[in-house]
């Protein structure tokens, strides 16, 4: 059997007095689309950052695609990528220049062809020569996505992939991501606040609270478990319960 795409063991991150992630244990199956849900400060971004190697854990272990991420991150970084609307690409560079720079950074063979193919697939051709900073939110998201798919990642990490997009653009991105995932058998781990998106795209959901995973299951399982009709209602249930518990304290 294939090892999981991500295996996290007793993963803990403490920033001075704040415990951001508390002894997390989870595995993400290869080829799955998994969502990481939770309110602000639940530990999603810290967890994603540790999986990418941008943040060092205080303790615990992270294995990504069979490699120890803390000690051998460069063995696995070429096989993964990341997209987030909150981490930008240089705004003054054109789309083409940004893609060319990252294609070089990833050592992409036949760079020009690879960039042109992605530009075509993601409908970027018309504004390849435009400065990235002048694009609309939807166009920027597609550029960011092109950057994150340059190396055909086996593991794709997404932080709110459709944040601030109109419904049409968001739908286009989701369809493209699903298609990419199926075409290349990629594993996707995404943090999202959009429950419709999670319901549509994900086959596994982890709900985080105070640095721990509180609930886990398929969207259907969680909906059933909470006796609700949608994942949005499940999320609100969990969130309000949190609020109630905090008020009781």
């Amino acid at each position: 059997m294939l090892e999981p795409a991500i295996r996290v063991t007793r993963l803990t991150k403490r920033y001075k007095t704040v415990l951001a992630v508390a002894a997390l244990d989870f595995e993400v199956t290869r080829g799955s689309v998994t969502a990481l849900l939770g309110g602000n400060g639940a530990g999603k971004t810290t967890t994603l950052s540790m999986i990418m190697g941008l943040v060092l854990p205080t303790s615990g272990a992270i294995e990504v695609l069979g490699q120890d991420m803390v000690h051998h991150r460069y063995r696995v970084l070429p096989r993964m990528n990341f997209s987030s609307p909150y981490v930008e690409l240089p705004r003054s560079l054109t789309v083409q220049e940004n893609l060319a720079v990252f294609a070089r950074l990833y050592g992409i063979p036949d760079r020009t062809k690879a960039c042109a193919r992605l530009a075509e697939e993601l409908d970027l051709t018309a504004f390849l020569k435009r400065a990235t900073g002048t694009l609309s939110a939807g166009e920027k998201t597609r550029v960011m996505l092109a950057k994150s798919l340059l190396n055909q990642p086996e593991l794709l990490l997404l932080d709110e992939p459709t944040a601030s997009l109109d419904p049409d653009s968001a739908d286009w991105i989701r369809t493209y991501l699903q298609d990419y995932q199926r075409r290349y058998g990629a594993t996707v781990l995404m943090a999202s606040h959009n429950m419709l998106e999670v319901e549509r795209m994900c086959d596994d959901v982890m709900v985080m609270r105070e640095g721990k995973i509180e609930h886990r299951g398929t969207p259907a399982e969680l909906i059933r478990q909470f006796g609700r009709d949608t994942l949005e209602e499940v999320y609100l249930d969990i969130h309000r319960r949190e609020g109630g518990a905090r008020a009781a304290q």
Partner: protein
Amino acid sequence: MSAFRDKVSRAGAHGFSPTRISAMVMRHVYLLRRSWPRLLELAYWPIVQVLLWGFISKFFATNSTWVAQAAGVLLAGVLLWDVLFRSQLGVTISLLEELWSRNLGHLFISPLRPYELCISLTTMSLIRTLIGILPAALIAIPLYEYSIFDMGLPLLAFFSTLLVFGWALGLAIAAVLIRLGMAAENLAWLLVFVLAPISGIYYPIDVLPGWVQVIAWMFPAPYVFEGMREVLFHGVFRVDLMLAALALDLVYLLLGAGAFLYSFRVARVQGLLLRTGE
């Protein structure tokens, strides 16, 4: 694994990659190419300095016996000092461009190694320094009939030594920028000027008080400026001064690069790499 993924994976696992360094250099060259204010800014201050010091030199050439012995001594000083300043700034501004554009997260989840970033920053520093200094040096030729290039090979030695010292300072400041972010932005512009009074740019080091001289000789710059005056006044290239400057350069470069790499690790511990930007 597909052949494509296999190639990418092998390229990324390589410990040192000129392609990744060239990617980072390209990123900054693209930026300069499409931004004339950035290019103008690089050349503006050195040209203003040369204009100013050119006239001061002209005045002193007839009013000071010291300057009269070597008319270009002040202009050479100002140009070489600018090499140090531009070189330091070349490293820190290139890093600041990454902070301003909030791009560090993307860079550090790519296979780019921190030491490759160091090398690309120093390469950009060389490019930025040449863009800044060359027009100023060339302008001095028709305006003041002074060519710094007449110094010959010693000029290359002085230029290289100050360039490397600028890299060392730039990397040390970059280390602080990675730790403190934009809060430390002004350091990029100001820190090098602490060294100006003790570098002997326009006057010999022995005019300084004894205890200040001891501090001054701990840095490479005074050796370069004393060496420059030896060439201009006596036509002698002092190898001893040059060797001392190079040895100090090496020490400071190792310290600067060490500080940069250490601060990168601290940034990973403190989760600072995604939290950059204004």
